[in-house]
């Protein structure tokens, strides 16, 4: 009863504020004014100070951040959306938090370990643009890729920068009260070369103190990518083992396929895609997909259709108008992925932004808020 009264009161308050300000909240209305005192402040995000930038190796670095009090806690394995201002525009990227909640509780800091993308717009730029004390914005933590304590036997398969959520999980265990975890954990850590094993010392140190933890450094230069033999060779794994996979999508796909052939139960395989999940395990890498997030529809993108045509062909009817990019009615939030704008003849950023559906052709995997 009481909650419904509070709910009604909230609704009335929202209606009042909406009517007075033509914004969703007072905070949004005052946002530009508040920014005079707190630069880059956002009503919907958590203002966060850069504590340090740590270089891990030639193509990875770690942003150490101190979120403001508005930031709630998180679970090891979750990710956040990092939003920074570049040339007057907000740009966003998703990153797993590579440090643990226990570390956050002690220091108030979280870490994002970021791989520099070759032709990236943002990841090579961040360490140059940011320095100690710079302001960025982050979202609250999201994601369900967390280590379940009831899984007694666990195998983590990490590819490249996919190590980050596992580092958070292992750090959390190392901080925990009971020095010995009852969980048996094997980490298959794949990296491009022996130079690229991120957090190697930390994991080795952890292995020394935890007899239930087994670290396997898999040097792809020497042994290639995931094979069934790599998994089959691990004697500590059994039919009850839960597999947690994180890495580039081809690696996740390959691992899932191998586990399928090893008769692993589907509910024992845990993974997370930062984009649309490929339709089947056999798709070619050239084929891309568009995920209509709100409609829960994922469709193959093989023709050179605009997103508007693609949506309509799949019985999703977004608001649209002139269909030539003038009227801005079909504007839609792209959560991730690159699209080609046929009017300006430019490629979009890969992060979240507003796009015009009628003149956007998907280039790679695209997620739309539609």
């Amino acid at each position, binding site marked *: 009863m009481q909650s419904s009264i509070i709910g009604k009161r909230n609704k009335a308050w929202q209606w*009042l504020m*909406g*009517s*007075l300000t*033509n*914004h969703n909240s007072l905070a*949004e*209305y*005052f*946002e*530009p*004014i508040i*920014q*005079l005192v707190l630069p880059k402040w*956002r*009503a*919907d995000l958590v203002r966060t100070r850069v504590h340090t930038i740590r270089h891990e190796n030639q193509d990875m670095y770690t942003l150490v951040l101190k979120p403001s009090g508005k930031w709630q806690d998180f679970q090891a394995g979750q990710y956040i959306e990092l939003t920074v*201002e570049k*040339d*007057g*525009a*907000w*740009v*966003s990227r998703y990153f797993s938090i590579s440090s643990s909640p226990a570390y956050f509780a002690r220091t108030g800091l979280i870490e994002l370990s970021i791989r520099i993308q070759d032709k990236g717009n943002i990841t090579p730029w961040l360490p140059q643009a940011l320095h100690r004390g710079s302001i960025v914005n982050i979202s609250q933590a999201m994601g369900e890729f967390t280590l379940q304590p009831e899984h007694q036997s666990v195998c983590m398969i990490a590819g490249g920068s996919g190590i980050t959520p596992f580092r958070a999980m292992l750090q959390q265990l190392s901080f925990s009260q009971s020095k010995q975890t009852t969980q048996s954990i094997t980490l298959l850590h794949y990296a491009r070369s022996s130079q690229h094993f991120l957090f190697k010392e930390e994991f080795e140190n952890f292995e020394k103190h935890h007899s239930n933890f087994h670290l396997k450094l898999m040097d792809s230069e020497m042994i290639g990518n995931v094979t069934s033999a790599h998994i089959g060779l691990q004697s500590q794994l059994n039919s009850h083992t839960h597999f947690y996979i994180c890495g580039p999508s081809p690696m996740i796909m390959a691992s899932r396929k191998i586990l399928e052939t090893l008769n692993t139960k589907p509910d024992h395989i845990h993974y997370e895609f930062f984009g649309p999940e490929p339709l089947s395990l056999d798709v070619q890498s050239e084929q891309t997909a568009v995920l209509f997030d709100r409609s829960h529809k994922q469709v193959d993108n093989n023709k050179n259709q605009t997103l508007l045509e693609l949506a309509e062909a799949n019985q999703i*009817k*977004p*608001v*649209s*108008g*002139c269909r*030539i990019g*003038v*009227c*801005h*009615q079909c*504007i*839609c*939030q792209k959560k991730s992925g690159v699209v080609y704008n046929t009017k*300006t003849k430019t490629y979009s950023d890969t992060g*979240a*932004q*507003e796009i*015009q559906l009628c003149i956007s052709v998907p280039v790679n995997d695209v997620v739309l808020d539609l």
Partner: protein
Amino acid sequence: MNMQANIATPETSEQSPSLSSLDEFANELNAVRERTMAKVGKTDARYIRNLIRIQRLSDIGGRVLIVLGFLHPAYWVIGVMALAAAKILDNMEIGHNVLHGQYDWMNDPNINSRKFEWDNAGDSASWKRYHNHEHHTYTNIIGKDRDFGYGLLRLSDDTRWKPRNLWQFFTYIALCLNFQWGIAYHEVAGERIFMGKRRKTSSLPITREELKYAFFNKAARQLFKDYVFYPLLCFPVFLQVLAGNFVANLLRDIWTNTIIFCGHFTENIHTFKASECENETQGQWFYRQILGSSNLEGGRFFHIMTGHLSCQMEHHLFPDVPARHYPEMAKEVRAICAKYNIPYNSAGFFKQYFSVVKRIIRYSFPDNQSSTLTPA
């Protein structure tokens, strides 16, 4: 004065430049657009944010001063001016331009065409649906651009004279004083809701019920804010606040109406037939935008207060380029038009406004030729 003969006659297209020269014309305009877009960035973000800050301060400051009017009437007067200025900035330089998607590249959740809602009786999403699509695509095509005369005024020979046109100058004054409601009613939804006018081929992806809800919801919120909530909040000076808000809305209505009429209904504006514009090329489309619009000349402050609709031609050529660049672009556009012998209609405010009034009065009366001819 030769132009006079061409005004609003269907023969216009016969004297239009050749297709190939219009193609070159389009290329040059596209180059202007590209050069400008290359400059868009940090400065534009700072500009629009600062403008929003000024709008907020002027909104709040104005409302406070209106209340303080009991100390001295001058406070009330300044307060009303400040509130009217806030509404004008919100509707024109901020709202109108944001709703055209000029700042969508900023990726800001509150400064984008999908979400922005303005301090105006018309629901912004419904307005955008009509204005950006129909008015900007079919500018000055009789029967397609409902902005041409707003269904109330006869502004060219293309529409048949009716006796009610005789007193259309007073209709115009009434529209001017209630412009936000005129827009909300005529452009957005009203007619379709109340009169049951249904188009054969509706491009609207939303239902009439949704349209109706958006219309009444927005109208109720606006009336509640200015005429119920704030007056009651300052109950002892109820009337003073009510009157202040009323006058501020009125000033905004007169100003926006005047500026907008100067952009499309000046003397030398051309009108078009739907048949002339079928399958038109980009060059022809640009050409029509130029012939269908007119500019006002003035200083930077004037341009900002008009939401840069003083550069109506540039706005129609480049609706999604941040408007603060229009005055710079206008110099180039003017030179390009001169090169291709395309009339560029730009003059001071009073000259343009006088010609608008002249046009309204002139078309109050039946066309000389047609009236002398015997009805067939």
